[in-house]
């Protein structure tokens, strides 16, 4: 019996029982589609986080006061609080040749008013370097000018949303706004830009770091953002920063330096693991579909007993009958998988339309893996019924007892 004839015979048999065939196809298709849609969501989440982190700027290091390492070393002495990071600490980092930009950050919240309008706003005290580090763009005017960071001045750059709320359509440039009891002249408005990682750059007011220190009456920096010279300089820059601050802090190793790369690769690992996990869970549904194929094929074998007996009487051997039933299982799983592919692409298309900001994308490996798994389960679960059919005793299969 030639392959094309086996396939033709099997297809005819499948069309002979349309309800049963459709049921199995549906189960297979759902299994394959769920693997692909779920992995595309996991992959989408990974890409989303990735994009968010890169929008933070490139080659970024963040210096935090206090050690947050949780491994090794004796517990900190009672009552010991980490030493504050100061503006001088930040400026001293510029000594390192691996550090390109340094932006000290003081953050707080204060009422901001212009004429009758006022509201509570996040105030960010920093320096001119922030502009490059965060890759900001100006809508109007200019950013904080470079100059001695330790002397404050009454100038402010405001976010797009603050501008809209306080000034409406009027021009804000050159206007004086009041932050708490201090007066600041608006020298620039940030361009409208999406938010990145929780920090809404349109909803804040940026002032020189020294002014912010006076405003909030503190010497301590919230953190320091640093841009390394280039990608390869990141880890050397990290070591340099730790050393410089340690020197300044009487040998105390009391800061934490986070690199963007480290965070990024951590998230990357988490989301890749997550994607594989949900793919695995979804693959269970493929197994279920395989078991369904087995059940349906077993029913089919017992219902087609006399057909099998007849084929044997006509001269079909063990292997021919085995092939006919294996072909049926293979056709079911293959067609089901193809249907599943269509369903999955349809599903992700709809998701992409509903959530344009979220990058859904079916990873190629999940297409290959799910289709392959469908095939393999279909065949594995098809073997038992096919063997049962092939081993059937023709006399009792043909008798009407």
């Amino acid at each position, binding site marked *: 019996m030639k392959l094309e004839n086996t396939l033709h015979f099997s297809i005819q048999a499948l069309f002979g029982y349309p309800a049963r065939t459709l049921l199995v196809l549906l189960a297979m298709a759902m299994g394959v589609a769920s693997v692909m849609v779920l992995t595309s969501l996991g992959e989408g989440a990974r890409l989303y986080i990735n994009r968010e982190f890169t929008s933070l700027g490139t080659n970024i290091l963040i210096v935090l006061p206090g050690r947050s390492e949780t491994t090794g070393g004796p517990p900190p002495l009672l009552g010991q609080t980490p030493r504050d990071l100061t503006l001088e600490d930040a400026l001293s980092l510029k000594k390192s040749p691996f550090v390109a930009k340094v932006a000290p950050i003081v953050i707080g919240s204060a009422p901001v008013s212009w004429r009758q309008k006022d509201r509570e706003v996040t105030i960010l005290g920093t320096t001119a370097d922030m502009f490059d580090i965060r890759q900001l763009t100006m809508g109007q005017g200019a950013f904080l000018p470079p100059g001695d960071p330790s002397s404050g001045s009454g100038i402010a750059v405001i976010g797009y949303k603050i501008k809209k709320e306080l000034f409406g359509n009027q021009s804000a440039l050159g206007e004086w706004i009041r932050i708490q009891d201090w007066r600041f002249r608006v020298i620039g408005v940030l361009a409208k830009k999406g938010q990145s990682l929780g920090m809404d750059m349109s909803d804040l007011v940026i002032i020189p770091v020294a002014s912010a220190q006076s405003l909030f009456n503190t010497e301590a920096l919230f953190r320091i953002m640093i841009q390394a010279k280039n990608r390869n300089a990141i880890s050397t820059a990290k070591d340099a920063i730790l050393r410089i601050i340690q020197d300044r802090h009487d040998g105390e190793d009391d800061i934490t330096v986070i690199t963007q790369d480290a965070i990024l690769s951590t998230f990357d690992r988490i989301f890749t693991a997550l994607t594989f996990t949900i793919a695995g869970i979804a693959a269970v549904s493929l197994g279920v579909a395989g078991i369904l194929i087995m059940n349906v094929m077993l029913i089919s074998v017992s219902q087609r007993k006399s057909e099998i007996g007849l084929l044997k009487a006509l001269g079909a*051997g063990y292997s021919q009958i085995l092939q006919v039933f294996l072909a049926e299982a293979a056709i079911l799983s293959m067609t089901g998988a193809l249907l599943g592919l269509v369903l999955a692409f349809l599903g992700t298309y709809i998701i992409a339309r509903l959530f344009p900001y979220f990058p859904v994308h079916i990873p190629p490996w999940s297409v290959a893996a799910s289709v392959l798994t469908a095939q393999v389960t279909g065949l594995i679960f098809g073997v038992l019924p096919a063997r049962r059919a092939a081993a059937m005793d023709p006399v009792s299969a043909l008798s009407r007892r």
Partner: protein
Amino acid sequence: MIRLSHIDRVFFVGEEQVHALADVSLEISAGEYVAVMGPSGSGKSTLLNILGLLDRPTKGLYQLENDPISALSNEQQAQVRLNKIGFVFQFFHLIPRLTAAENVELPLILAGIDPGQRKPRVRQALESLGLSDRARHRPDQLSGGQRQRVAIARATIMRPSLILADEPTGNLDRTSGNEVIQILEDLNRSGISLIVVTHDPALGERAKRNIVMTDGQILSDRQQAP
């Protein structure tokens, strides 16, 4: 052509042994027309199944064209069924989802014959049995007599040397039964050996040789006077 020597076929039903065939010895030459008769349960079908290689004897030697059958593997026995033996059953055993032509074509497909050669052979087989206009009908669109004729076309498409028919008219009225027997006898006249199991004495009388069985044994075996 066929030689059975001391054939036993024992079924085990629980503790009990059922001797469906007990020490049956028989010789049938090529081209013979044999009717097997006897009461229900006498072992007629069992004999036919063993002759057709659907069943194996518990004991004894079966030689078909001088080859001992027990020496053949399962796949080789399937090849013998495919090429040398045609079955005609009481219940036709046509595949319901296939048309008459497709049912007749099955043995050719199993034999791996090219489609180009299959179609004319099927057409010719149907034509010689007066079924040309029924080729595209499915079994449920055919009468009993027509179904049995399709089954005969299927049994003969591989040009076997032996046709085994177990109550071929058992499910047919007298007219279509006679038609079917006529066809089988025509085939026999063309040189094919024919063994028919029947309950109908009138049919038995038509055969040139009559074998009567009881309790798994051959009670009588006589040649009709010409």
